[in-house]
C-alpha cells in the first residue's frame, strides 16, 4: 500500500533512481533473497519451543518480581542514611519538572518581549543573602533592546540597585546605559601598598553611586569601541557588620580622603579588539583591551584624575583545541591630574573583581597602579566546561618604577571555567598563596 501511494505523481520520478540503485544493491550482496524473500539466518526452520506440562487458561510467564530480600537488607541502612539527600534530589527533580519547559524548551521560538518580573538572590557569602525583585523589559524601545532593573537588600544591610539597558544589541552602532547604587557596610580595607599585612583587615561603609552611558561602535563585543560618559559619587563612612572597623586600625588622617565623599564626572573610551577562533572558548588568538576615563571633580575639593587599563590576552592550543594555554597581562592605574595631590583611598586601583589576585582575598591590595600576569593551562572536561591550572603574579605599586619582580604576589591553583558567551564566563577557582587558600566563584566578563 505504501508503494501504491508512492507510485504516482512527481514522487514517482524522484524515486526511480534510488529504487534502481537499491535493487542493484540487494542483488549484489552475497546473501541474496530467494523467490519468497525469506532469508533464514538461524532458528528459522527448526526451533519450536517445546511445552512441558499442562498450561491452563492464559498464563503469565512469571510472578511479579520484587527486590531480592538480601539486597533489600543490604541497601536498607544506606537508604535510611541517604534519605534526606534523596528528598533533596526528588525536590530538585520536581522543581526542574515544573520550570524546565519554560527554561529549556528548545523548539524554534522568537525572543520573549515585554515586561517581566522575577525574584533575584544575591549571595555574598555563607551569612549574606540578598533577595529582591528584578524587572526586565525586553523589546523596549526597539526590538533588539532590553532594560533591566534589579534591587536587593541583604541580611547584612547591603542595599544595591542596578539598572542596565542596551539599545541596538549586536548592531554596528548601539547604546548602553548602566546605573548602580551600592550601599555596602562591610567593605574590606587592608591599607595601601603591596606590603600591607593581612592583619590590617578592617571594614568600612562605602556608598557608591555610578551612572554611565556608552555609545557602542561595532556589533561584536570582541571588536568594539565604546565612547563613555558618566557620573560617580562615593562616600566612605563608618562601617558595620564586621570588625575591626577601619578607624580602629588606621589612625585618623593617615588615609587620603578618609570620611570624605567625592563626586566625579567621567568621560573617555574603552575598546576591545580580538581575533579569536571562538569567542566563548577561545583556543587560538589574541585579545587586546583598553580603557581610559578622565575624572573631573564636581566640587572644588574633589580630585581630578585619569583611570586607565591595558590588557592583553593570548591563547595557544596544545596539539588540540581542547587543550589550551592562555595568557593574560593587565596593567591598570589611576593618575592624579590638574594639581590634585592625591587620590582618595577608595578610588585607588584594587585587587578586586577581574583584577583580584587569585590566592588572596578580594580588596587585599590597592595602590595607584596594578600589574597582573597569569598563565593558565585549560583542558576540556565536559562539553564547554574546562578545567584549569593557573599560575599568577600580581603586584600593586605607587608608580611604574616601584614594581619589582621580587615583591610580586604569587598564586597557583586550579578550577573550572564555563564559557557563557562572548562576553561572560563562570569561573570556580581555588588558589593558594603565602596567605593561604582562597576559593572564588565569579560570573561575569572573565578571562
Amino acid at each position, binding site marked *: 500500500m505504501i508503494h501504491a501511494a*508512492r507510485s504516482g505523481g512527481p514522487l514517482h520520478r524522484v524515486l526511480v533512481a534510488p529504487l534502481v540503485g537499491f535493487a542493484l544493491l540487494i542483488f549484489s550482496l552475497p546473501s541474496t533473497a530467494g523467490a519468497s524473500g525469506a532469508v533464514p539466518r538461524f532458528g528459522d526452520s527448526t526451533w519450536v519451543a517445546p511445552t512441558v506440562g499442562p498450561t491452563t487458561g492464559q498464563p503469565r510467564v512469571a510472578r511479579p518480581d520484587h527486590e531480592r530480600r538480601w539486597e533489600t537488607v543490604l541497601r536498607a541502612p544506606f537508604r535510611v542514611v541517604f534519605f534526606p539527600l534523596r528528598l533533596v534530589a526528588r525536590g530538585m527533580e520536581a522543581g526542574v519538572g515544573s520550570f524546565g519547559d519554560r527554561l529549556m524548551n528548545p523548539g524554534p521560538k522568537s525572543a520573549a518581549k515585554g515586561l517581566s518580573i522575577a525574584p533575584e538572590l544575591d549571595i555574598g557569602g555563607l551569612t549574606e543573602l540578598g533577595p529582591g525583585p528584578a524587572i526586565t523589559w525586553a523589546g523596549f524601545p526597539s526590538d533588539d533592546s532590553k532594560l533591566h532593573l534589579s534591587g536587593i537588600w541583604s541580611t547584612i544591610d547591603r542595599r544595591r540597585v542596578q539598572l542596565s539597558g542596551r539599545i541596538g544589541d549586536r548592531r554596528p552602532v548601539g547604546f548602553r546605559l548602566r546605573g548602580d547604587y551600592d550601599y555596602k557596610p562591610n567593605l574590606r580595607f587592608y591599607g595601601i601598598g603591596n606590603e600591607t599585612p593581612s592583619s590590617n583587615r578592617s571594614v568600612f561603609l562605602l556608598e557608591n553611586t555610578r551612572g554611565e552611558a556608552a555609545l557602542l561602535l561595532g556589533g561584536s563585543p570582541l571588536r568594539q569601541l565604546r565612547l563613555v560618559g558618566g557620573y560617580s559619587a562615593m562616600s566612605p563612612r563608618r562601617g558595620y557588620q564586621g570588625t575591626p572597623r577601619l578607624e580602629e586600625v588606621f589612625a585618623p588622617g593617615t588615609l587620603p580622603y578618609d570620611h570624605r565623599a567625592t563626586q566625579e564626572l567621567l568621560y573617555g573610551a574603552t575598546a576591545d579588539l580580538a581575533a579569536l577562533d571562538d569567542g566563548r572558548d577561545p583556543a587560538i588568538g589574541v585579545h587586546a583591551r583598553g580603557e581610559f576615563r578622565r575624572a573631573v571633580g564636581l566640587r572644588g575639593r574633589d580630585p581630578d584624575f585619569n583611570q586607565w587599563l591595558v590588557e592583553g590576552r593570548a591563547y595557544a592550543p596544545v596539539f588540540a583545541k581542547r587543550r589550551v594555554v592562555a595568557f593574560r597581562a593587565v596593567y591598570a592605574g589611576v593618575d592624579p591630574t590638574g594639581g590634585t595631590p592625591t587620590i582618595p583611598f577608595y578610588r585607588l586601583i584594587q585587587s578586586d573583581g577581574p583584577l583580584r589576585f587569585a590566592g588572596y582575598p578580594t580588596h587585599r591590595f590597592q595602590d595607584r597602579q596594578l600589574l597582573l600576569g597569569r598563565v593558565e593551562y585549560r583542558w576540556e572536561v565536559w562539553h564547554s566546561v574546562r578545567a584549569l591550572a593557573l599560575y599568577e603574579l600580581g603586584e600593586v605599586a605607587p608608580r611604574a618604577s616601584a614594581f619589582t619582580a621580587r615583591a610580586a604576589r604569587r598564586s597557583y591553583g586550579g578550577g573550572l571555567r564555563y564559557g557563557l558567551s562572548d562576553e561572560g564566563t563562570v569561573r570556580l577557582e581555588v588558589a593558594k598563596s603565602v596567605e593561604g587558600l582562597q576559593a572564588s566563584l565569579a560570573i561575569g566578563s572573565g578571562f
Partner: protein
Amino acid sequence: MRPGTRSRTAHALALSCALLLGVPALALCSPAEDAMPDTTIATVDNHTEVDHDRRAIPQPPDWEPNFWGHQFREGLIEPLSHAFDIPDKMLFLARSLGADTRREAVNVNAFDEVPNSTWFTNRNHVRAVPVADLARGPDSLAAPAKPWIIKHAKQGGASAGFQIKDADGKKWLVKLDPRDHPQLSSGADMVARTLVRAAGYNVPHNEPVRFRRSDIKIDEDLLRGTKGEHFGEADLDTLLAHGAVFPDGTYSAFASLFLPGHVLGSPSMRRLRPGDSNDWFTHTNRRELRGLYVLCSWIDNWDTKDHQFLDTFTMRADSLGHVDHYLLDVGSSFGAQANGPKARWQGYESTVDLGWIARRFVMFGLAVEPWRRAHQNTGIPSVGNFESEVFHPQHFATEQQQGAFRELTEGDAYWGAKIVASFSDAQIAAAVGSTHFEDPRATEFLVRNLIERRDKIARYWFGRVAPLDFFWVEEGVLRFHDLARDIGLEGERGYEVEVESEGGRVRTHGRLRMTTPEMDLGNLPNGTSRLTLEFSISGSRSKPVRVELMRTGSEWAVTRVRHG
C-alpha cells in the same frame, strides 16, 4: 563452581555485610514506587511462548513521568547516585570474588526467550521477516493525503513540526527534516523503525513525506486564535525556514500517524504503570527492555529516554481493554538527531558521563575519547555522523543511562545480539532501501556500516556467551544451533559438555566432547529423570549454556535453557 553455589555465596556475602552494618531487619523494604498488580487471576507457566498481559482491565489513568524532571534525574541525579552507591560497590566486589549478584531478567521463559507480550513479539530471530516486507517498511498504510490542514503547532521536542489533519481526516504529526539535511531524520526514522519492528518491538506508523507550501492550510480557529492557540502564516513560514528542502522545492519531512487507542503517556522505566494490573514486571527487569541496548547500539539510537516510549489503551466494546507499549521515536539513529547530524560524542558518551569526565580531568585533557578517533563525518547530508570502525558493542552509550540498560546482564546482551545477528545482509539492504534515499551514497554507506556493526556485535557478545541455542530433542539426539557458525562468523569447532544429575552429583568423569552441534542422549547414564548439561565451546572463554533435560518414559525433553 557448581550451579547454585555462586548464588549462595552472594547471599552469604550480602547478609554478612548487612549484619555487620547492623541492619534493622526487613523493615525498610523495597521501593514504594511500584504499584502492586492484581495477581489473583492469572496462572503462571514459565514454558509459555505468550505472556498473556492483554487481560481485560478498566482504562488506567493517564500518567507519564515529567519530561524535564526525568531528564534531570536520569542525566544527573542517577549517575551521581550510582557513583556513590555503596551497596553497588559491595556487590561489584562480591562479583569479582565469584559471586553472581546480577539480577536476571524476570520475564524470560524456560527456554531463555522472551514470550510475546504487549511489549514485544518474537519476529526475525525465530522466523525471518521476508525481505520484501522489510523493503516496504513496517507500515501498511498510505502517506497522508493532501491537502493538509494544520490543527496545532508541535509541542516539545527539538524538531520543528506541526499537527495536521489530512484529506482523509486522519491526524498526523509532521516533523521537518533539519535544514540542509533532507531525509536525515525521516530516513533514519524509516530505516530504524523497519529494523526495530522486525526485531520485535511495536512502532508507530511514520511515513517519509514531501510537500509544498501550497499543500498546507492552517485551520481557521488556529489562524484566529479562537481556542487559545494562535498559529499564523508568518509562524508557518518561520517554521518551514527550519526545514530541509529538496532541489525541486519540496520540503522533506516525516508524518507520524496518531496511534490507535487512547494515549496514556510514556511509561517509566522505574515504576509500573498505575492502574495497569497486567503490568507486573519491574520494567528494568524486562529482558526486551534490557536487551534493547544491543539493538540500539547497532543502529546507534542514542536517545532512549522514557519519553521515546508510549503506552496506549485499546478498548473493547465492553469498555475494558489493555495497554500496548510502543517504541515511539527512533529517528535519532545512525548519524541523525532531530535538528541536524548528531554530535560526535553522542552514542559514545552519556550527557553526564562521570567516567569520562573524571578521566579527562585527571589526565589533563590528554585522554583521547573514542568518538574523537572515529571518522564519523560521512559527508552525506542524509546520513550525518555515523561509523562502524571505532564502534564498540559494549561501550555504546545512550544520552542518559536508561534504567533497564543499567541492569543488562550478559544473558540479556546475548539475547539482544541474537536478534541483531539474525538480520541478513539482504534484510539490512531491504530495510535501508525502504527509505528510498535520493543520495545513492546514503544507501550504500548505511548498508555497509550496519553490516559491519552487526558483525561486531555478534562477534563480541557471542564471544562472551556461548551462542549455542534452539535446543531440541529429536529421536534421542539433543540438537542445537551454533549461531556463530550459522551466520558464518565461525567455522567448524568443537563443543564440550559437563553432565550433572538431579542431585548435583556428577555422573560423568571429565567432559564429553563433540564436533557437531548434536549430542546422543543414549550415552547418558540410566536411572535419572533429570539432567543438567553445561555446554561450552572448546578453546573459548565464553560463558557456557546450561540446559536442563527431563525424561518422561524413554523420551527426553528440554525443560530449561539459560545463557551466560
